[in-house]
C-alpha cells in the first residue's frame, strides 16, 4: 500500500488559507472520487471539497476552527501500490448490464 497526500488547493483567486468547519469523513473511511470530504470556510465563502480520488483515509489535518494554509497537507489517502502514482483510476470489473434485447427472424439460407 502507498500513501498519497492531498494538500489544500487554492480555493479562489489569491486565497491563502481556509478554516475547517466540519470533516465529513474520518480516518479509516473508504471514500469515492468526488465524495465530499470536508467543509471549509474562506474569506469569500464556505465550500465543500470533493475528494480528488478514491482511497482509504489515513489522516486528516486540522479540526473545526483550525486554519490551514494553501499547499499544506489536508488529508492523506492509502491506495494499493499498483494504483499509486498513475493518472486516472483502475476500472472496476462489473457484471455486464444491458437494456437492449435482440429480436430477429433468421432466415437460414
Amino acid at each position, binding site marked *: 500500500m502507498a500513501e498519497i497526500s492531498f494538500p489544500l488547493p487554492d480555493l479562489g483567486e489569491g486565497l491563502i488559507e481556509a478554516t475547517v468547519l466540519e470533516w465529513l469523513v474520518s480516518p479509516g473511511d473508504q471514500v469515492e472520487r468526488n465524495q465530499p470530504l470536508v467543509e471549509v470556510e474562506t474569506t469569500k465563502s464556505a465550500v465543500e471539497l470533493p475528494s480528488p480520488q478514491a482511497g482509504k483515509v489515513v489522516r486528516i489535518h486540522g479540526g473545526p476552527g483550525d486554519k490551514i494554509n494553501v499547499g499544506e497537507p489536508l488529508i492523506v489517502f492509502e491506495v494499493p501500490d499498483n494504483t499509486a502514482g498513475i493518472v486516472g*483510476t483502475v*476500472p472496476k470489473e462489473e457484471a455486464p448490464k444491458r437494456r437492449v434485447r*435482440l429480436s430477429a427472424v433468421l432466415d437460414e439460407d
Partner: protein
Amino acid sequence: MSNAILESEAAMADGTPNHGVEQLSMQQALNRALDEVLAGNPKALIFGEDCGRLGGVFRITDGLQAKYGTGRVFDTPLAESGILGMSVGLAMAGFHPIPEVQFDGFAYPAINQIVCQIARMNYRSRGTMPMPVTLRVPSFGGIRAPEHHGESLEALFAHVPGLKVVSPSNPHEAYHLLKYAATRPDPVIFMEPKSRYWQKGGVNFDSADGSDSPAGDSPTGANVMRAGRHVTLVAWGAMVARCLQVAELAAEDGIDVEVLDLRWLKPIDEAALVASVRKTRRAVVVHEAPLTSGLGAEVAQLVTQGCFDTLKAPVERITGFDVPYPSGDLEDEYIPNIDRILFGIQRVLEYRRG
C-alpha cells in the same frame, strides 16, 4: 555500453525462463515479456519518462532497471520528440530501442520522428538502415484520466507506410505479442489497452501460439476468440473483452456471435476477416476511436470487397464520436457500450435488401 552488456550477460546467466501457465495481470505479463527480451538481446534498451527508477507509471518496467542497470533501462527527459529521436540514432547504431511514451496523447509531439524518420529510414536507405524500434504506447480510454490520456491513435499510425501496429486484448496475447514485436527488424507501434492492465488471465509461456486462446497458432494475424454463426464482431484492444460480453448476452436472445480479435491493425489479417464474415454474412466493427476515417472504415471496405456477394447487410460501425476524447466523467457515454454494440447487431440482423 560495455558495462551494460556485461550486466545483461550476468542477468542471462542467472535468469530463469518462464514456463507453464500462470495467472497474471496484463501489467505483469508485459513485464515478463520485457524481462525476457532484455535477457535475450543485449542490444535491447528500454527508456522513457519514469520507465527506470519508478518502473513506469503503470509498473510495466517495474524492477527492470535494478536487474539490468541504468545503461539499459533508463529515464528520459519529458520530451517525446527526444525519446523517439534518440531511438532513431540508437537503431542506426545497432541497438533495439523499446521506448515508451507514457500516454497515447504524448505521441503527438513525436509524430515527426515516428513518421518522417523511423517509418521510412529503411526505405530511404534501400534496406541498409533498418529501424527495429518497438514503441510501447499505453492506449485507449477507460481509466477516467484527463485530456491527452485516452486517445486511440491506431488509424493514424496504420496510415503510415513502414509502421506495423498491434494491440493485445488479454495478458496471454500481451506477453507473446510484445515478445514477438520486440524481436522484429521493423518499427512496431505496440498499443497497450490501459483499461485492461489490471485484469488477470492465464498466460501460457510455453507456446507462442496461445493454446489458452480459442484459436491462433501464431503471433501474427487475427484470432477468432469465440466462434459464432449469425454475426461477426470485429474488435481489438480493450473492446475485445466487451465484445465477448456482448456475445454472451446475445446468446440469451438466440443470436450466435463470432468475435474476431484483429490483433494486428497494420497489416490487417484480411484472410481471417473475410473467412469469418463469409461464414456469418454480417459484420459489426467496434472501436474506441472516432468514427470518421477510423479503422472501422478500412475493415468495412475489406469485408465489402471480400464478401460482397454473401453479405446480408452493410457493415455497421460502433465507435467513439467525432469529438476530442471527453473528460473522465463522460467517457462511459463515448466508449462503445454493451447496448450500443447490441443495437449495431440488431441493425445488421433486421436489414433487408430492396
